[in-house]
C-alpha cells in the first residue's frame, strides 16, 4: 500500500480564527447572534419533512418580504449571482432579445450572462450616479422588442436607488418581462412586487436580512411562468432549471418531490430566522428605519464637509451610501486606515465608481444611529490622518 503523496496541510492543524469586525461595506453584513444560532442547529436531511416545513415558512416569509402572492416563490441555493442566472437562464432562450439597463455593474453582469446563453443583448446606459428615465426605457423596448428587461433596483456600486414606477406597465405593453435585482435594496426601501408589475424579483440573504450568504430569495409571476414553461428548449442549466426547483420547493402543486440537488439546510435555518426577524419588526418599519438612519448618516457626512455621490435625495439607496472620495486623499488609504484603526469595513468604488467613491453599507441590524456615529468618527479620524501632501 502506498501512503498518500500529498501531506496533510499544516494550515488545517491550527484552530480556525475569524476576527470580529464591523461589516459596513456593501455586503455581506454582520450576522446577529440569533441568526447565527439558528444556523448552528443540527443538520437534517434536505428532503426531510421538517426541512420542507422550514422551506414552506421561508416561502411565506419571502412572499411577505416581496409583497407578492406568487406561488412560484422560493430561495435559490447560492448567492445573488445564482439568482440572476436562475432568472435569466429560465426566462431567456438562445436567439431571443434581452435588454439590460446599465447604470452600474449589475446591469453589465446581467448582459454578460444573457450573452453567454446566446441571447441578443442590448443595453441602455446611464452613467454612474444616474438612472434611466421611463422614456429612455420605452424607446429601447420599442426598438429592440426584448423578451426580458433587466434593472437593478439597488445599484450598490454607485449608491443609486432606481425608480421603478411605471416600468412594469411599459414592459408589459411591449410584451416583455420585467426582471429586477433587489439584492442591495430589499427590506431597506419600499418594494412591492405585484403592485409594481415586476415579473421576476430576487435578492440575497446577506444584506438587509443579515443572514450568511448562501441563499437567494426569488419569485416568478404568472406571466413569467407562462413563458418559462412554454420554452422550446430546456434551460442550459440543470441546477437552475425552474421546473426542478419548483418541485423541490413545493411550488408546482405536485404531491411528490423529486430529488434535484442537496439544499443548503443550514443556510435554510438562518434564512428562515432572518425572515422571522423581519416579520417581527414589520416590513414597513424596516423600510422606515433604513431611510431615517440613512438621512441621519447623510447629514452627518455633509456636516463633515464630505459630499454625497448621488445628488438627488430620492435616488439615494438607503442601504449603501456612496461618498465622493474627498479631494487630496487616496481612497484606498482611507479604507485601509479605517479597517486597521477602527476594525470597521467600508469599501471603495466598484466597477464604474472605482476610485471615485467610498461606499458605506448600513443594512438590517447594522442600520442604526449608533453605527452611524461610529462610522462618522472613523471617517473623521481618517480625514485627519490620511491627507496626501504635495511633493
Amino acid at each position: 500500500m502506498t501512503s498518500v503523496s500529498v501531506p496533510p496541510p499544516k494550515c488545517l492543524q491550527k484552530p480556525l480564527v475569524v476576527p470580529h469586525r464591523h461589516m459596513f461595506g456593501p455586503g455581506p453584513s454582520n450576522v446577529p447572534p440569533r441568526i447565527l444560532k439558528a444556523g448552528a442547529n443540527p443538520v437534517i436531511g434536505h428532503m426531510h419533512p421538517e426541512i420542507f416545513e422550514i422551506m414552506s415558512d421561508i416561502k411565506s416569509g419571502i412572499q411577505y418580504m416581496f409583497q407578492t402572492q406568487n406561488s412560484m416563490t422560493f430561495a435559490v441555493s447560492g448567492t445573488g449571482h445564482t439568482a440572476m442566472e436562475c432568472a435569466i437562464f429560465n426566462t431567456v432562450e438562445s436567439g431571443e432579445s434581452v435588454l439590460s439597463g446599465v447604470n452600474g455593474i449589475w446591469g453589465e453582469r446581467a448582459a454578460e450572462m444573457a450573452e453567454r446563453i446566446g441571447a441578443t443583448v442590448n443595453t441602455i446606459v446611464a452613467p454612474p450616479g444616474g438612472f434611466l428615465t421611463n422614456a429612455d426605457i420605452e424607446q429601447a423596448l420599442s426598438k429592440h422588442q426584448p423578451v426580458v428587461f433587466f434593472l437593478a433596483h439597488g445599484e450598490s456600486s454607485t449608491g443609486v436607488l432606481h425608480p421603478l414606477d411605471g416600468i412594469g406597465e411599459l414592459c408589459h405593453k411591449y410584451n416583455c418581462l420585467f426582471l429586477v435585482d433587489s439584492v442591495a435594496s430589499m427590506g431597506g426601501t419600499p418594494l412591492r412586487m405585484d403592485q409594481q408589475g415586476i415579473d421576476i424579483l430576487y435578492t440575497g440573504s446577506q444584506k438587509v436580512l443579515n443572514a450568511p450568504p448562501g441563499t437567494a430569495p426569488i419569485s416568478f409571476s404568472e406571466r413569467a411562468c407562462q413563458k418559462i414553461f412554454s420554452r422550446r428548449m430546456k434551460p442550459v442549466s440543470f441546477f437552475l432549471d425552474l421546473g426542478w426547483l419548483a418541485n423541490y420547493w413545493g411550488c408546482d402543486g405536485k404531491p411528490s418531490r423529486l430529488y434535484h440537488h442537496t439544499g443548503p439546510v443550514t443556510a435554510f435555518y438562518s434564512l428562515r430566522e432572518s425572515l422571522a426577524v423581519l416579520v417581527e419588526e414589520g416590513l414597513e418599519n424596516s423600510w422606515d428605519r433604513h431611510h431615517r438612519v440613512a438621512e441621519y448618516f447623510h447629514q452627518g457626512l455633509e456636516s463633515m464637509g464630505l459630499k454625497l455621490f448621488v445628488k438627488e435625495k430620492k435616488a439615494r439607496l438607503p442601504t449603501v451610501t456612496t461618498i465622493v472620495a474627498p479631494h487630496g486623499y487616496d481612497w484606498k488609504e482611507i479604507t485601509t486606515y479605517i479597517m486597521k484603526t477602527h476594525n470597521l469595513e467600508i469599501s471603495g468604488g466598484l466597477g464604474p465608481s472605482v476610485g471615485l467613491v467610498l461606499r458605506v453599507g448600513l443594512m438590517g441590524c447594522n442600520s442604526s444611529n449608533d453605527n452611524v456615529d461610529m462610522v462618522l468618527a472613523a471617517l473623521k479620524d481618517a480625514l485627519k490622518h490620511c491627507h496626501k501632501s504635495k511633493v
Partner: protein
Amino acid sequence: MQQQESRPLLSPSIDDFLSEIRSDAPPRGPPISNTAVLSTALDLVDLSEPGASGGVRTPGRSPLRRKASSRSPRRCADPEETELIQVEVQRTSPRTPERIALEQVSPPVEGWDEVNLDGDDGGGKRCTSVHSSRELLWSAEFETDPLTKNCFDVQRLDLGSTQVLILQSTGTHTAEYRSDTEFWDRMQAEWEELARRNWLEESEGQGPPPPTDPPVQRVYFFHTNNPYRGTPSAFTEGQEKARGGDLNAAVLLLEAAILQDPQDSEAWQVLGMTQAENENEQAAIASLQRCLELRPNNLPALMSLAVSFTNSGVQGGACDALHRWITHHPPIQAAAAAGGHASQGPPCRQEVLLLFQDAALMNPDSVDPDLQTGLGVLYNLSSDFKRAEQAFSAALSSRPQDYLLWNRLGATLANGDRSEEAVEAYSRALELQPGFIRSRYNLGISCINLGAHREAVSNFLLALNQQRTDQRCSQQQMSANIWAALRIAVSMMDRPELSQAAEAGDLDLLMRAFDVV
C-alpha cells in the same frame, strides 16, 4: 451596446450656469435624472452657489447672485471639484474682440448676458469666468488611463447648434470648433468604452496594475483678462516675479509671454513650474506637457512633470517622464550610447528606478541633486518614504537653499506619517520663499495631522489670501485643493457657522474669525 439619451454627469458649475440661463426660459424637457458629481482631475472653474448640490436645481438660484458687500468675494462653492476658482472678475463687454480665445456663438451666452446686464449696484463686477467655465468643461480632456478610471464631470446639453470654441493657445494649436452633439458623441463613445472595459473589474484584490499609456494631453486655460498681455519682456519679468514669490503676477506675466509667442518652450516650462508652486497641479501638467511638445528633452520640465504626476497618482506618466529624464541625463546618455541598450514599451517603475540607481552609482562620491530628486520622486511613487527622505536629504546637502527640495522633503515626511518633522521642513521652505503656496498648503495639512486645526486653518487662509491678492489683475484664482482642505480643517472644529462660511467660500469672514491679516 445600445446608446440612448443617457445623461452624463452634471457638473455643478455648468449646471448652475445653465440654470441661470434657463431661469427665464421655458423648461427644457424632462428634468435631468443624473445627479451624481464625480470629482475629476480637471481644472474647472467652478461657479456653483454655496452649498449648491448641483443636479436638478431649482431655478432662481443664481450663481451670479451678489452679496451685499461688493468687496466680499463672489461665492464659489465646491471648489474641491475644480482646481481654479475665479473671484471678483471685472467684466468688460460680452464679447471683447481682442479676447483671443473666447468666442461664443450660443443662445445660452446671450441669456447669460441678459442676466448679467440686469444691472446692479456698485462695481459692475461680474464673472466672465462663466464663459470660460463653459469652455473649460466642454473642452476638458479627461484621463483615459484605465488605472485611474476617471470619469468626467460634464453635462449633456440640448442647446441646439451651440458652437463652442476651445481655447488651447493661439498659433500652435488649432482652435477646435465642436458642435454639441459631436462632442457628446465622442464623450459617450469613450465613456462607454471605458465602462465596457472597466465595469467588470473589482477594485479590491487586483493584481499589479497593468502598464498604462502616457496620459492624454491636458488643456491649459488662460486668464481671460490679463493686464500684462501686451507687456514687453513679459517672460523676464515673469521669471523675476516667480523668483520673488509673487506667483500670481508671475503666472499672468508668463501667460502674457506665451500669448505673444506660443512657441516659447521656456515660458511654458517656467509657467508649469510656477503653477505647481502655486498649488495648481492641472495647470502645471498642461503647461509642462506643452513645453515638452515643443522641446521634448527639457530636463527641468520632465522632472517637474514627473512630480506633478506623482502627486496626482498617475504612476505611468511619472515613470515615463522620469525615464525620459534619465535617458537624457548626460552620464546615462553616454552609458546608453556605449551599451546600445534599447527599451521596449512603456517603462515600469522598477526599470526606471534601476536606471536612476545605476546613475547614482556611477559617481558615488559626489551627489547629483537632480538625480537624487528623481530618486526621491520614484520612492514616493512606491510609498518607500524612508528612502525618499534619504534621497531628498542628500539633494539638500548639495543645495540647502533650494526651497522646492525642502518642500519635497517635508511632503515625503508627512506622507510617511512624520508630521512634526514635516512641519520643520516646510518652515525652512517658507523661510526661503514666503510666497510658496504649495508648501503653505502642505504645512496646513500637517497641522491637520497633528490635530492643530486652528493653525491649519490659519495657514490655508493665508495661502488663499495670498492667491487672491493682486492689485493689477482683478481676476484672481484660488486653488480648489486649498479650499477643500480648509473646509475639512474647519469642519473638525465643530463650529457650524464657520463650516458654513467655508462651504460658501467666504474668505473674508473666515479671516476675521481666525484673526488672519
